[in-house]
């Protein structure tokens, strides 16, 4: 089965357009490392969000820790603002099983209690294992079960999607 992946830059442009009406002066943004953080960096700049960008590394909250162990290269999470009562946009690159988002929300609540969290994803590939859905989606794609869908960023900052079939 051959899959045609969309151009990530085009998808990003669509996502940005969808998000613009939803952003207010109160909005804060958090990106999930590493791909989500790349998307969030761009959105944060292009949407002109006032509060500094937060990043989450959910290694300490992954539910596969007891089978896979702690992931190497754990870069610290950084939430440079008080999350209590905030309207938050949580950004990830690819929405898949939903487990990463669950881990991210668990971690966020250890910082405090946001007022709302909306989930923003560049692409949604389906195959959810948890009752989680995104409020803002750049594009929906269908890829073979079990294949690895990755976002990459080149030296110039261009984003692209890649598929690795197993």
């Amino acid at each position, binding site marked *: 089965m051959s899959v045609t992946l969309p151009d990530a830059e085009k998808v990003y442009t669509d996502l940005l357009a969808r998000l613009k009406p939803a952003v207010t002066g109160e909005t804060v943004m958090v990106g999930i490392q590493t791909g989500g953080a790349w998307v969030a960096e761009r959105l944060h700049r292009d949407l002109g969000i006032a509060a500094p960008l937060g990043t989450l590394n959910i290694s*300490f909250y992954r539910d596969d820790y007891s089978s896979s162990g702690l992931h190497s290269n754990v870069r610290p*999470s950084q939430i440079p603002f008080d999350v209590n009562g905030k309207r938050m946009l949580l950004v990830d690159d690819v929405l898949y099983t939903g487990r990463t988002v669950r881990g991210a929300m668990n*971690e966020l*609540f250890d910082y405090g209690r946001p007022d709302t969290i909306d989930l923003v994803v560049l692409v949604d590939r389906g195959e959810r294992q948890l009752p989680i859905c995104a409020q803002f989606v750049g594009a929906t794609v269908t890829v073979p079960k079990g294949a690895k869908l990755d976002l990459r960023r080149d030296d110039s900052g261009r984003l692209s999607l890649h598929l690795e079939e197993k």
Partner: protein
Amino acid sequence: MRNPQLNEKGDLQHLLNVEGLPREHLVRILDTAASFVGVTERDVKKVPLLRGKSVFNLFFEPSTRTRTTFEIAAKRLSADVINLNISTSSQSKGETLLDTIDNLAAMHADMFVVRHAASGAAHLIARHVAPHHHVINAGDGRHAHPTQGLLDAYTIRHYKSDFSRLSVAIVGDILHSRVARSLIHALNILGTPDVRVIAPQTLLPTGVAQLGVRVFHNMNEGLRDVDVVVMLRLQNERMKGPLLPSAQEFFKCYGLTAEKLALAKPDAIVMHPGPMNRGVEIDSSVADGGQAVILPQVTFGIAVRMAVMSILGGGS
């Protein structure tokens, strides 16, 4: 002979000693600790990694301070912590060390944090337990105190970043010090070009230079232009007798005062594994002065122990 700390896949199975720890494992522990420092600054200073796991603190030699830091580290990882202070007198009633371990293993312990007065005790336990148990050496005799060595290395990296240009002096009772041995190995693995020990001959082990250090007997020579000064604790029972005439004389020759510290680089940091003997190995003006990083060491120590536990506790 296989490295007793690693499993067949080369993953870290136990933390027994810094010596023989592959560099990538050491660096990974320090990097992971950096992430945990962030966790300890949050509202909820806890992550769920070790939820449902049991950490047994087995202290065959009393040490409230070390036990507490391991307890806090385990609790911040959401583990259940059981503290056992086992006096050697109850051991002499017939139950052997390995009997004790078998009993606790039957209570579904996942991790043993072991402090023991005999060098090699943690190795013995690690050799004995089933593969799903993990052993962390919290100090065995004169041999090793790896989490202390790692937290010292973390502290040095935090303040000095590049090990490849550092001069580090370790001062005091090297002979009986597991802290010194572990730090010396860590500094060597991390590529520190100049590691010095400063002590009278009575407080240096035979052939100490083979550990990878330069030996000084004189503080004024040994401290010259160093970046880091690590003072060791001098145990009370060693202050008089055949090793040293008195605490006062030790302080005169090897105590760290502001005047002696002035021989080091102006931005040198001063470390101490605690608890300090003020006026024996370190003067209060130095211990409380701007160059001392003794309290940050304690904070980093919790993050380093969290890192070790979370790296050992994961995977099947």
